[in-house]
């Protein structure tokens, strides 16, 4: 459509001044949405009319404003009115929610702290019992370790003694005297090692029954047909060092009272062997 022709037709002025028919008004309103230049022409005339009216205005009687505002007084919504309205409607629930809001977190915190305390107490008991158990286990382990260490020490000593005994047994100066079991005690056996240089005597009780309590085996050297005390056999690993015997034709072992006897109890002889 020819918008300029429409704008120039006088319809806009007619519309603004309230003289357009409802059909004309509806058409103009529709065209304003479609054509920005028509809308602009409308606004231009409105602005011109307004500016003209404002500059050539005559003030109404001064008391009129007061009269108008007095009659509208109850209808104004002031900031104070709004606040008062809101407070009056909101105050009761606000207070209620405040009480609940102030209490709920502290109640919750109290409950939570009690629960945590109980949990903490339970944990303390649990950890203390664990601690005690672990301490006991630790002490048992320390004891076991000490025992093992002691046993190890004993074994080391024993093995050292064995080593030393072996060294002595294989010494070329060492004379070996085998002592088999005598008649009736054939299962028994012991060996004498006799250092030909120092004349020291060592005994190896290969196979002898465990002596009864208060009894001890005693070694005898037969010198010129007579038994000479060569010492009692104590609990020793490997070779047991006995007394120094300068000369002997035979060695024998009898079971005597603890500490040994002056003369051998021949009935209790276990093993015997000739030198050479």
């Amino acid at each position, binding site marked *: 459509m020819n918008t300029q022709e429409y704008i*120039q*037709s*006088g*319809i806009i*002025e*007619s519309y*603004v*001044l*309230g*003289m357009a028919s409802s059909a004309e008004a509806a058409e103009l*309103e529709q065209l304003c949405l479609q054509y920005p230049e028509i809308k602009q022409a*409308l*606004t231009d*005339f*409105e*602005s*011109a*009319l*307004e500016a*003209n*009216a*404002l500059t*050539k*205005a*005559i*003030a*109404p*009687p001064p008391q*009129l*404003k007061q*009269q*108008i*505002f007095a*009659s*509208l007084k109850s*209808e*104004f*919504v*002031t900031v104070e009115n709004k606040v008062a309205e809101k407070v009056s409607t909101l105050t009761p629930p606000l207070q209620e929610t405040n009480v609940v809001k102030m209490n709920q977190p502290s109640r919750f915190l109290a409950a939570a702290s009690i629960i945590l305390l109980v949990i903490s107490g339970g944990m303390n008991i649990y950890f203390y019992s664990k601690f005690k158990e672990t301490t006991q286990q630790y002490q048992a382990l320390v004891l076991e370790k000490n025992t093992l260490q002691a046993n190890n020490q004993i074994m080391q000593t024993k093995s050292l003694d064995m080593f030393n005994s072996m060294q002595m047994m294989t010494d070329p100066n060492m004379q070996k005297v085998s002592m088999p079991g005598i008649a009736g005690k054939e299962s028994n056996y012991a060996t004498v090692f006799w250092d030909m240089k120092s004349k020291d005597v060592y005994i190896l009780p290969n196979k002898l029954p465990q002596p009864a309590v208060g009894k001890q085996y005693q070694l005898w050297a037969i010198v010129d047909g007579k038994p000479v005390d060569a010492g009692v056999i104590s609990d020793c690993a490997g070779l047991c060092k006995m007394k120094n015997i300068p000369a002997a034709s035979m060695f024998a072992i009898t079971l005597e009272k603890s500490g040994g006897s002056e003369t051998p109890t021949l009935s209790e002889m276990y093993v015997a062997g000739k030198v050479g």
Partner: protein
Amino acid sequence: MEQVIQYSESELILLLSQRNEAAFSYLYDHYSGALYTNILTIVGDQEAAADTLQEVFIKIFRQIDSYDSVKGRLYTWMLNIARNAAIDTTRNKGFQKTKQNQELSENVYDFAGSAEIKSDDIGLRKAVHGLRPEWRVLIELAYFEGYTQDEISKMLDIPLGTVKTRLRAALKELHKLIKE
């Protein structure tokens, strides 16, 4: 004192829709003169114009929600309320009697140059005064007295199409005169 607070039209409309007293006070201070002048050009009597203006501002305040900014400016909307209210006032029987009495008293005492404001000197009527007589009468009847074009056609015994054409031409000329 000059108005310190200045509102944009959209701010003003928003605040008015919230029934804000300060905004309404601003609206009154800003537009009461323009609207009063318009009412006065139609009513011609200051007291009746003041009464009409009061009625108009109360209507504006109470009906602000019916204003549609898409259709036009706030002043245009208010002007139409004022014009309709003013025309209603002139059609009121009581008012017509008072008017007649006034005219009579004016005639008797010859009030020329008195405090009475001659409505021909103010507002739109002053611009209308610059139009040719055959256009001026149409604006007078259509705008100031609120007759429909059909009514004018019958009153003046002129074809409706001619009324329409002349009225539009008159309005275009009026537009020019306003802008000057």
